[in-house]
């Protein structure tokens, strides 16, 4: 037979063998699912990279090209705003000439007092739509970093226009990445790529390895037979490819079908409030095609390379195979201590990459160590079982003693899941800790006392109109701060003070004592951070117009909650071109948490995806191993009429090793995450939750494995083949 004919025959024979092999159907499913997951993971990475690129390009395209007063055709000023727990940018624009270039995404210049919002911001609700003036139209996708971006262009009214504080520009588009837009409040590309590789890439890679080795015991024996028949390494590889090619091809096709919709329309992602822009997805098309073709080839290569090599003179039994890579065990303590100490010693910018990479390596090596420990305790377990007449212990002990690698494969998925989930949870707790505190204080204070501040000019501020816009009984007090003495004065005239139940301070400012519940709470909170509130009598408008850091406090006499958006709208109309409205006593505490919340949500999405993959991996691994157990115990259990033996064996060979591995993973993760700034209680709570989930997963695996073995044992029949 010529070479091509032989290859075709080997491929065909391999395909036929895959159907009849032990655990053949499980391996078929595993390879199918692993390839699909690997292709999806690669496509996800490429789409993310393309999305980052596209967002950067659009961000660059909308930043103004600064110009001198003489040549400027428009005025431009970006300000920060927030809604719910999300920060975003509001850009104030004003054309100076009739031919002033439009910012990307706008089809016409808004009229004075009009605002053009992004579709996502507009969809937040009616309260946001009117905050900046009349909302007219929406910003087109080419003017936004992503369709989910919150962004607004506002053309101020003539009264509020503040040319002094705006930048003159002659057009749009720069070559550097500006500090404006969604990317400022979201996961950065470097952090995202690291998190993606650890939380999605590693599980996907693990799935491929586990799938390639499902039913390894029977297949290794078959490889030995092929070798004995004179099959070369190449022939064995073609045979192995024949076994795997169909499920791998189907898996890649399924993934391609699953990814295709992102090329047709904008795709919202769950959890993270992010929409993938179809244009970015299409830009990634060549890479996606490469992934759909290349990843399955890589999976096939892995399947071939992960077959044990033929070693003349060596036993083909697992005992010998298990001893081959003991040197890898020595890498574990190096990786463990290297990660913790290396993070301390690394330059500040490299700490996160060092910690992330070290954690991934440590967790990847841990299953091998857990396997070696469990395997080494196998003989003692078997002796104990034999002495006490416990069949489950006896069989499991002997099975575990055969080799560390089958045990490592068994526990790998759960160990990696626990490690990743725990690290993800700890990182999320890091990001969300601050915003949780802010939220708690906000809830405590409510919105009965809100602060309006601005960095823009308030020389024409009209406080009386501002008050009257907010309805009857609402007062506005000016705020002045003296950073040297730590004193903050609230300025109002006597009728207002009396209205609020405060004795009118006639001469020097007096420490604020009020019956107004909201103001009293705010004063108490300020006192707790060393700021004392004083009441001073004065003209609010005058104080606002002359203050270097103008700021107002708005509150209702009856203590009712105020609408932040209504206050914002009134402030933008009457106080300054752009204002910031927050719960009083919260000013300055909100910065940075928007990014943290977004990062936390991304981590949540990625770790859920990764852990879901791993749960499937763990199940596939456990079931595949127990098909063999069921077949081998079949004769004994049939003759003895004892089906409980499967559950006993499962407890000792699945539950106990996995529970041990979970505990080891929790302990190692605890140690590895010590360089993180997370609170010990947060780490403990995250690790306890993940550890408990891991143990529950181990119990389900053990039950599932026993059930599979029991089912395999029930259908066992003597075969005279």
């Amino acid at each position: 037979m010529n070479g091509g004919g032989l290859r075709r025959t080997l491929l065909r024979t391999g395909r036929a063998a895959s159907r009849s092999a032990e655990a053949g159907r499980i391996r078929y499913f595993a390879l199918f699912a692993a390839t699909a997951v690997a292709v999806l993971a690669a496509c996800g990475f490429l789409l993310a990279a393309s999305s980052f690129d596209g967002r950067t390009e659009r961000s660059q395209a909308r930043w103004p090209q600064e110009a001198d007063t003489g040549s400027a055709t428009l005025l431009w000023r970006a300000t920060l705003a927030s809604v719910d727990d999300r920060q975003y940018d509001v850009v104030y624009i004003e054309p100076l000439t009739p031919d002033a270039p439009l910012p990307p995404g706008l089809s016409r210049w808004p009229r004075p007092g009009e605002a053009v919002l992004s579709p996502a911001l507009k969809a937040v609700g009616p309260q946001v739509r009117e905050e900046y003036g009349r909302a007219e139209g929406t910003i087109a996708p080419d003017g936004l970093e992503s369709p989910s971006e919150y962004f607004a262009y506002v053309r101020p009214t003539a009264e509020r226009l503040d040319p002094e504080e705006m930048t003159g520009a002659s057009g749009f588009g720069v070559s550097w990445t500006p500090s404006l837009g969604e990317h400022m409040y979201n996961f950065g590309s470097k952090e995202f790529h690291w998190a993606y590789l650890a939380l999605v890439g590693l599980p996907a890679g693990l799935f491929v390895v586990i799938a390639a080795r499902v039913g390894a015991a029977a297949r290794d024996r078959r490889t030995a037979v092929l070798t004995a028949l004179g099959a070369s390494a190449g022939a064995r590889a073609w045979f192995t490819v024949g076994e795997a090619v169909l499920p791998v091809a189907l898996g890649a096709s399924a993934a391609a079908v699953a990814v295709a919709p992102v090329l047709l329309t904008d795709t919202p992602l769950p959890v993270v409030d992010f929409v993938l822009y179809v244009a970015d997805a299409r830009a990634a098309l060549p890479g996606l095609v490469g992934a759909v073709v290349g990843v399955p080839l890589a999976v096939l290569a892995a399947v071939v390379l992960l077959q044990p090599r033929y070693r003349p003179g060596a036993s083909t039994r697992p005992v010998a195979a298990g001893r081959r890579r003991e040197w890898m065990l020595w890498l574990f303590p190096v990786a463990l201590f290297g990660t913790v100490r290396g993070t301390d010693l690394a330059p500040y910018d490299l700490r996160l990459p060092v910690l992330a990479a070290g954690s991934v390596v440590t967790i990847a090596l841990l299953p091998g160590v857990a396997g070696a420990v469990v395997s080494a305790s196998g003989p003692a377990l078997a002796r104990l079982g034999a002495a006490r007449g416990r069949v489950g212990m006896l069989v499991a002990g002997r099975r575990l003693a055969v080799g560390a690698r089958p045990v490592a494969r068994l526990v790998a998925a759960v160990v990696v899941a626990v490690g990743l989930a725990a690290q993800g949870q700890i990182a999320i707790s890091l990001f969300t800790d601050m915003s949780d505190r802010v939220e708690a204080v906000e809830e405590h204070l409510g919105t009965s006392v809100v602060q309006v501040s601005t960095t823009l000019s308030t020389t024409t501020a009209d406080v009386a109109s501002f008050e009257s816009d907010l309805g009857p009984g609402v007062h506005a007090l000016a705020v002045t701060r003296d950073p040297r003495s730590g004193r903050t004065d609230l300025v109002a005239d006597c009728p207002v003070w009396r209205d609020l139940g405060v004795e009118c301070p006639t001469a020097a400012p007096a420490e604020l004592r009020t019956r107004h519940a909201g103001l009293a709470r705010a004063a108490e909170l300020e006192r707790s951070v060393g700021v004392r509130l004083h009441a001073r009598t004065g003209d609010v408008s005058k104080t606002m117009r002359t203050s270097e850091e103008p700021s107002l406090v708005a509150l209702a006499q009856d203590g009712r909650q105020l609408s932040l958006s209504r206050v914002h709208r009134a402030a933008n109309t009457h106080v300054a071109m752009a204002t910031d409205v927050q719960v009083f006593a919260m000013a300055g505490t909100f910065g940075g948490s928007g990014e943290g919340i977004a990062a936390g949500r991304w981590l949540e999405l990625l770790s859920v995806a990764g852990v879901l993959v791993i749960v499937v991996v763990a199940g596939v691994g456990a079931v595949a191993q127990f098909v063999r157990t069921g077949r081998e115990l079949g004769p004994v259990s049939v003759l003895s009429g004892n089906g409980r033996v499967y559950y006993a064996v499962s407890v000792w060979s699945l539950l106990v090793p996995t529970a041990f591995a979970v505990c080891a993973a929790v302990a190692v993760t605890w140690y590895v995450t010590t360089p993180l700034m997370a609170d010990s209680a947060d780490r403990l709570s995250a690790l306890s939750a993940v550890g408990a989930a891991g143990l529950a997963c181990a119990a389900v695996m053990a039950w599932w494995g026993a059930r599979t073995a029991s089912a395999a044992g029930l259908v066992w029949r003597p075969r005279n083949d």
Partner: protein
Amino acid sequence: MTSTPVPPVLRLSEVVYGVSGRSLLAGADLTVPAGSSVSVMGPSGSGKSTLLMCVMGLIRPQSGRVEIVGQDVTRLSARALAAHRRRHVGMVFQFGELLPELTPVENVMIASLLAGDAVTEARSRAESLLTRLGVPEATATQDLSGGERQRVAVARALVNTPELLLADEPTGALDGEQREAVADLLFSTPREHGCALVVVTHDPMVAGRADLRLHLHEGRLVQAQEAR
């Protein structure tokens, strides 16, 4: 005074079983008293293994009776059948079907442990049987030769002192010398243990050692000479 007649260990009456329109057992009859042996021969696919599976209760015949120690196993519930099989039946498979990682003693004693025996009794019976059968001590059963493994399988089948011992091609995978040794061992068990033995085999030499040599011919068990 007349004594109650002892029922045969195994009695098959008019056992019928077919699959996919093909009749494998078409009214098979067989009676095997304690202390005697029967061999069943027949071409591949003639229904020999099906016959053994009917006896073990792994498949239910479409009609007829399969009595083991006076009990028709075709009418037993799954739980009662498992208990009856555990008490009265032992089986030797063609490839031993042993757990390769366990020692020979452990392979034999787990059958006894699973039947509910105490560990000391199970161990001592397993060791004694293996010594009598001449199985060398080994760390793992997978290190034994084919003949030795088959002797371990015989020991496992005998450890619960069954009244009925079934053997499915017990020498099929063995060479001449080992085949002789295993055959000697099997056919000595009815005399030594007082059990009934049914051996399904392709091997005329092995079949020739049985007290009664039967042939599965067109779904019926007939004396070897009749079949020719």
